[in-house]
Structure formats: C-alpha cells, structure tokens
C-alpha cells in the first residue's frame, strides 16, 4: 500500500473509529489483517536451519504425459512444473521440472567421491574432483531448460499440462570450453558424449560447436547446490537446446569424431532432417500463465495479464499479446531484463469487459524468428507438400478462451 503519510493517518483514524463503533466483540484490528487461524509458526531447529514455504502455498508439480512418476520401480519419468503459479522468472529448485529418458533412479551421490573425467580425442585427459572444479573460473547465468516433450494439445486443461516441462534457474559452474581447452581438443573432435552416473548411465551426443560456445558444467542452482533430481552434484547445461542434452549426475565427457547414437540419442531420432534441426535448438516461445486454463477471473475490470517467453536462439526481443484470438497484437512489457536463453517475464495491462474473448501471446527472439500459430506451421509445411504437423520442438502459440463467466479454457482446436 503506497498511501501518503497524511492519507495513511486518515485511514488509520477511520479504521479505529469504525472498530470502536462496532464494539469490542466484533472488532477488527485496524491493520486490516487478522492472524491466521493457526496463530503463529513456532520456531524449530529445522526451520532455523532450512526454511519452508507457507502451508497455504500448495503449488505442486505433477506427473506429466500420462505415465506415473514415480513408477512401479520407483523411477522418475516426467514431472511438470506448476507455471500457472509462477512469478518472476526463476523456478524454485523444488518446483523445477524433471525429465528422464525412460525413467531413471535419482542417484545418491557423495560429492567427496564424485569425479568428472574428460578424455577421448584430447591431448591431456583430465579428472576433476568437485573441489577442483570449484577452483576454476566460474560463471553464473540464468537459463531455461525445456523438455522435447513439452508439447501442447487440445486435451490439456492447464498451462502446467501444456507448458510445464520448462523451467528456468540461475546456474553456476564452469564453462565447458574452459575444461575442453584445458584438455586440448584434437583435430576431428567434432562431438562430445556426456554421461551420467545413474543406473542406465544416460549419455547424450552434443556438437562441439555448441560445447565450446556456452555449455556449462554446473554445481550451483538458485544459490545452492544443484538438487539431486536436477543432477547433484554436477550437471551439464546446454543452453537453449532440447533438455536431454543437459545431462545430469555428470561423470564423464568423451571427445569423439561422430554422433555416437547413445540410447538417449536414439530415443530422440527423427526421420526427416528439418524435423531433426527443429528439435535440436528451441524456437521462440511464450505462454500466458495468468489467466490460463482452469483458472477463473473473479469478475470484470483490471487485470495484469502475465506470462513467460523464451528462446533457444538467444534473448527475447519482443512479446505481443492479442485479446481477440490473434487478429490484433499489442506489445507487452518485458519485466526486468531479457537474458539469453532464459525465461523472460512479460505483462500486459488489460481491462476485461466481461465479453467472451481469446488471449494469446507471441514471442520474437533476437534472431528475428517469430513464434507461429499452429495454423501457420501447418500452412508452411503444406505449401512444401508435407504433412501439416508441428515438426521438432513445439513452439506454437497457446490460445486461452475466456468465457463470459470468467472461466479460462484451452482453445487449441
């Protein structure tokens, strides 16, 4: 509340008068806020040591894509982040989405024992302890990670279902190029294979051009150690590329001459080269998180429409919003700074007049690529004599329909 001091005094006086008039029994404190029914949160050693959120904040992740997590074996598969409740651009580590290829156990790793080996086509194979990695020059960057399975369809209700397989964190670690230069990449070392320590030792092939550009070897996430579900103690981060390349529980990097066709690689193969290209780097994408599917507007009047935009091609340079199903577009405001390959918060000042309408958002990135509608993608491929489906990573515009009763619905047809 930003009342000027004189207004505030007036406000308090009126509040006191009102309370007095009503008599003691019904008195409401002039502060306008009553303590919660449970009273106070009693201090405990646990809460002193590591805080928790309010019990009134119940936002949770959900199993994604129709397969249980954990499954019958206790393996995690895909877990979607509740981005309908997100504010700002950082996904809390506890709510960061989780993806594994075919399901994986989260390994319990003692960081004292953990090692990272770099070998293969290098002049000097190297092995690092966690302590040694932390001695090297570090970088801290905001980056999103998005799963290739983050595809919206008409059967989804909420934005958690349509878009929850993306998250953004502040990552800290060593640039992979620092380590590769230290090892000395040999002529012909055009790929790396990055491998984790979990039971299936998930490994992904990454082009050397990407590895040397901006890949990070991360030990830090949102101001603390990387969480076990995110790869503790060490995670590869391949900014803006499909999530499976950001290998967790990283223990080994082998410099090689070719795409290695690992189990992870095989699982994401495409038959068509355009499809393959469109699935590697993530395109410009955005979604309105409020109001979004399953939510309810309380009535007409002012709302700040809010959402997230991101691109694997670099910074978000523009976000537009339409309130009439994509006929007219108005620039939204970018809140804070747009970082390369990071979630970027946008907002749009809106007065709802109570009529049924359709909200959409559209992102343009610094390369000039523009987020398409599902129809535009279909037309693009149909004009080339190809099936009109969404190839590669789905970066299509998400439409939300608002009915006259204020209910919000997925409007994918």
């Amino acid at each position, binding site marked *: 509340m930003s009342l000027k001091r004189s207004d505030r005094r007036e406000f308090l006086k009126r509040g006191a008068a009102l309370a007095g008039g009503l008599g003691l029994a019904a008195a409401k404190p002039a502060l306008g806020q009553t303590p919660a029914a449970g009273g106070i949160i009693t201090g405990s050693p646990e809460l002193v040591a590591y805080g928790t959120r309010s019990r009134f904040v119940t936002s949770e992740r959900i199993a994604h894509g129709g397969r249980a997590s954990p499954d019958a*074996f206790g393996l995690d598969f895909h877990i979607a982040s509740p981005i309908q409740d997100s504010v700002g651009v950082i996904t809390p580590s506890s709510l960061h989405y989780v993806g594994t290829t075919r399901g994986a156990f989260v390994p319990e790793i003692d960081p004292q024992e953990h090692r990272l*080996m770099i*070998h293969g086509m290098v*002049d*000097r*194979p*190297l*092995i*690092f302890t966690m302590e*040694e990695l932390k*001695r*090297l020059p570090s970088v801290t960057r905001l980056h999103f990670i998005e799963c290739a399975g983050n595809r919206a369809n008409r059967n989804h209700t909420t934005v958690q279902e349509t878009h929850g397989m993306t998250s953004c964190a502040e990552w800290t670690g060593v640039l992979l190029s*620092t380590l590769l*230069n*230290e090892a*000395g990449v040999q002529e012909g070392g055009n790929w790396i*294979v990055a*491998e984790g320590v979990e*039971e*299936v*030792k998930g*490994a992904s092939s990454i082009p050397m*051009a*990407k590895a040397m550009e*901006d890949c990070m070897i991360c030990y830090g996430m949102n101001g603390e150690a990387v969480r076990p579900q995110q790869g503790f103690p060490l995670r590869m981060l391949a900014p803006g590329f499909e999530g499976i390349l950001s290998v967790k529980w990283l*223990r*080994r990097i*082998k410099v090689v001459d*070719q*795409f*290695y*066709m*690992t*189990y992870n690689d*095989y699982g994401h*193969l*495409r*038959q*068509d*080269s*355009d499809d*393959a*290209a*469109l699935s*590697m*780097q993530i395109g*410009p994408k955005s979604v309105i998180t409020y109001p979004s599917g399953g939510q309810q507007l309380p009535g007409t009047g002012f709302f700040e429409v809010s959402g997230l935009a991101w691109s*694997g*091609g*670099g910074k978000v340079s523009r976000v537009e919003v339409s309130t009439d199903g994509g006929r007219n577009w108005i620039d939204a405001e970018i809140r804070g700074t747009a970082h390369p390959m990071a979630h970027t918060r946008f907002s749009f000042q809106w007065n709802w007049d109570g009529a049924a309408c359709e909200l959409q958002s559209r992102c343009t990135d610094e*390369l*000039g*690529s*523009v*987020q*398409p509608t599902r129809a*535009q993608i279909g037309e*693009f491929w149909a004009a080339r004599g190809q099936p009109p489906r969404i190839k*590669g990573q789905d*970066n299509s515009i998400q439409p939300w329909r608002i009915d006259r009763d204020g209910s919000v619905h997925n409007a994918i047809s």
Partner: protein
Amino acid sequence: MQFPRLLLPLLLLLGVSAQAQSPTYGVGRTPSAEEIRAWDISISPTGEELPPGRGTADEGALVYQQKACAGCHGATGTGGAAPRLIKNDRGADADPWSLGRILPIRSPYATAVWDFINRGMPLYQEGSLTTNEVYALTAYLLFVNGVIEEDKVLDEKSLPQVMMPNRETWAPLPDWWKPGMPRLLDYPY
C-alpha cells in the same frame, strides 16, 4: 617504424591462440590408462570400442532367463512391468518407426543395443554381465525381433555390421548449425 607496430599485436594474438593449446590453470590430474579403460563404456556406431567376445541367440535365450531379464520384461520380452523388448505383432516388414520405441528393432545400429544392455541392465545389477553374455543377449533380442537369423554369431566384428531396419531412415542432426544461427534456415519460426 610502422612494421613492428603492426607485428606486435599480431604476435600477441598468435601467442593467445597457441596458449589455448596448453593448460592454463593446471587444475585436475591425469587419469591412468586403466582408469580411462574402466570408465569408458561408450560404444560408437562403428564399434571400435567393442571388447572381443561372442554370443548367439540360443545362448542369449538362456541368459535372458538366468539373469532375471524375464522377471521384469516378461518371459517372451513382453507383458512385464518394464518396457517391452519385442515389436508388436505387425509382421516383419512393417515400418520400424511404427513399432513403438523398442530398442532392438528401432535403433539404427546394433551397437546401441549392446551398449545399453552393457551399461544399464539388468536393472539393480548393472555391470554384472560378462562380455559374452552381452553379445548373446543382443543376439537373442535381435533374433526375436526378426533382425538376424537364429544361428548368427555376434562378435566385435559382426555386431557393427548388422543391418538394422532403420539403418538408413534416420535424419542426422544439422551439421551446418553454428552458434547464433536460427534452428532451420528459411524457416521464419
């Protein structure tokens, strides 16, 4: 006088690029050859890292029962709690892309089947199979999926040569991509 002034920055530049080839920080140690051998479980599609060994489908069928594969994946490779390992009954010449994500039929290279069994199976006892058992299990799974004949011997030479149905039908990742490029040229989105 002009000449050396130009040369100096040039030499500095050369110095920087030469330096990138020698360690800058000297942190970390050199692993021994044994350490590298023990850690390096990668198998390329051309199979150069494959260890010597051999196995057939008949031997593999036995190992499949003995090593608890059947308990999780089902006695016949289907019907267990773990993912199925045989294709749907669509006939041997159905499009392999339509048969679900089943490694021993859909992988373009048999090396990936060997590699995954070797690194990840049997679940909870990974790394407990002998080299010959991995060859035998690979032969068994390829045989029940109609990829190889029952009497085919798989070893470090023949395994990379197995003609998987998808050998020629997959699209490589773009080799033209450079940082700062859009994901597909001439694609506006």
